[in-house]
Every structure is written in C-alpha cells, then in structure tokens.
C-alpha cells in the first residue's frame, strides 16, 4: 500500500510539473499523449509493486524470433 502511495505521489509531482505549462500553451495533443503514457506508467508501476506479472516484451520477441533461431541453428 505504501509503495503505491509513493508511486501516486511521484505521478502527482510529474503532473504538477508538466500540466500547467501544457495548458498554458494549449497543447491539447501533447496533453492527451502525456496522460495516456503516464497512466500506463503508473499502472505498470503499481502492478509491479503488488507483485503481479507484467507483460514482458522479451517474451513477445522470443515468440516471434524463436522459429527463425531454430531454423538457423539446426
């Protein structure tokens, strides 16, 4: 619980740093992309802090390239 509180605190600090200047400049698209990425980041961090499994990009790459590797090394 403490960990996720810490992560939310970090997210709040990031929001505090970025959002006012973005609103001021009226960069709508930037704000949307920023929010989506931050949501992903916070989600992943909290999932990690609870010890749940996070999708690992390495597994995906292994799945894609394994047949090629097997074909070459055989």
């Amino acid at each position, binding site marked *: 619980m403490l960990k996720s509180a810490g992560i939310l605190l*970090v*997210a709040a600090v*990031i929001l505090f*740093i*970025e959002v006012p200047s*973005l609103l001021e*400049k009226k*960069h709508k*698209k*930037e*704000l949307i*992309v*920023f929010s989506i*990425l*931050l949501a*992903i*980041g*916070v989600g*992943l*961090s909290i999932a*990690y802090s609870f010890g749940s499994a*996070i999708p*690992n*990009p*390495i597994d995906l*790459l*292994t799945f894609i*390239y*394994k047949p*090629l*590797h097997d074909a070459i090394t055989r």
Partner: protein
Amino acid sequence: MMQNVKINSYQFLVLVILFTVGTSILIVPSALATVAKQDAWIAAIIGTVIGLSIVWLFTKIGLWFPNLTFVQMNEMLFGKWIGNILSFLFISMTLLSTAILLYYSGSFLTTHVMPNTPMGATNILMAIILVMAVRLGLETIARSAEIFIGVFFLLFIILVVFIAPEIKFENIQPVFEADINSIAESSLSLIVISSVYAVSLLMIYPAFINQPKSAKKFFLFGNLIGGLVIIILTFLCIFVLGADITARQEFPGYGLAKMINIGNFINRVEALMAALWIICLYFKMVIYFYSSVYGLAQILNLKDYRPLTYPLGMIVVVFSLVIFPNVMEQQKFDSTINIYFALTIGLLLPLLMVIVYAIRKKQLKKNLDYA
C-alpha cells in the same frame, strides 16, 4: 516542427565514440571469448571492420535526407502509414534497449559496487539523470559528453598502462586456433552491439549536425576509435585473464581492473574504473532514450517532446526491473533473440530504405525540393 538545435561535428564525434564503446566495453570481451577462445581479438578486429561498412551505409542514407531524422525519413520513403509503423518498431527497439541498458547498469552496480541495495533504487537514480539529460536537450548532452570524453580517455589510458605489467603472452597462444565459423559467429555480437545499434544515431546525424557532409567522416572515425578501444580491451582481457576466465565473467573488463597491482601499492582500483563503464553506459542510454522520446514525438506529430520524458522514464524503470528474471536469461537473450531483433531494425530496415530510395528517387527529389 520542434526547436532547432545544432551540434557541431566534434561533439557528434564524441557522442559516436561513447555510443560505440557503450555497453561493448563491459560485455563484449566475454561474448567474443565464449566461442572464439583466445582468438577473440581477431573476432574483434573483423567485427570492427564489418561494423564500419554498416556505419558507412548509415551515413549514405543520412546524406540523402540532410534535414530529416530517421523517423521522418521513414515517413518520406514509405508513406505515412507504413513509415509510421516501421518507425514505431524502431522506437520499440530503442526503448527496449534503454530498459536493457538500465538493467545492465543496475545489475552491474548491485553485483559489484552496492550488493545490499535493491536494483530498483539504482535504476530509479539512473533514470532520473537520464530523464534530466533528455529534458535539457541534445546540446546539453553533447556538451557534457565533450567533458566526459576527457575523463573517459584518462581512465582508459590509466587502465591500459597499469595493467600492462600483468600481460602474459602465453595466454594468447595458440594463435589462429579457432576456425572461421566460430570467429564470424562471435564477431556478430560485436557488430550488432556497436554498429547495428548505431541506427539510433540516425535520429541525430543528419538533422541536428551543422555540417552533415563533414560529419560523415566523424561518424566513421568515431566508430573506428570506439572499435579500437574495444579491440585493445579484448586484447588485454585475453592477455591478462586468459580466454577461459574472460568467457566465464559477466563483466570481464571489471575483472581486468581487479588484476591491477603495482608493487603491492596500487591495487583494487576497480571502483575507479567502474566510472569508465558508467560514463559510457550512461551516454549510450541517453542516446537511446533521446531517440525513442524524440521519435515518438515525431511519429505523433507533437510540438514538443519534453512532456513525454517523465512518463516514458517511469515505464522504462518498470521494464528494466521485470525484463530479465536473472542473468542467465539475459545472456541467453543477448546472444540469440536480441541479435535477430537488432538486425531486423538496424540492417534490414536500412537496406529496405536503400531499395525504396532507388525506386522512388525521382519522385522523392521533387518532394525534397518542396520541403
């Protein structure tokens, strides 16, 4: 579209050197010695030569579009949709590499320097300065690289001079024992790590250099110097540690620095040498992270890339912690799957670009004139 920063050719040279040396200085000697044994230095030389020709290809592509970054080149060559998909693959590669390098730095620090610290702490600290550098922009990165290259070469020369008394020539014999296949196989890892990944420098190379034509030489020259550093280090590892120990260590360069002993007075200076690897690792990481952030901003057509740095930094930290459950997995991934992935993005994609450019040359010339 975004702010107009330019760095000069010398600053670019420094970045290329630090990028080429990057992770290779830590892990390549062991990767080379695993298969080629005491002939690892031959593999290093061959790898550097082949790597140079790959970098030459990159400079060639860069000079066709002197004002565009790699992402914009993709869009120009393949059109909006396919170009953006390919750029997205490129971004995923650089972002993944950032996470992998963060893992390296964390695992290096927690195994050798601070064994009781959890890896999360070191990675977060590293990520903070990573985000800081990218937010401050390319010029700041280039200038700090200019300062640190002096430190880097000073430490490297100290390492080489101090380790010289430990050289045992019998370690390198018999020469040319490895057959050509195993030499080619082991040089592949060096080619991939120090040259094929240099495709991420195409995010900087033509667009942000004030004289792209003369910088072409510096791109090649920087790669050559980086290659020489790696060749010298591989030589020393084989000479001092021997092929067996080099192959068995995770960080043979660190093991090498442990062997320094001058008159029982100057010894155990490896912590000083660790600064060498942290510097290289850091700048390589910065370039990867810069390319991914800047590239993502360009794909999505944003006006500023800075808002993306903090969230992406957060994502990278999480991935760096989960990406490899242990060192064995990392070694396995590095020596197999990673090579195919890097070759797909770093060699296949540029070659595809060459083909498409050759076909669409006339049409593109017209577009470039308009732009």
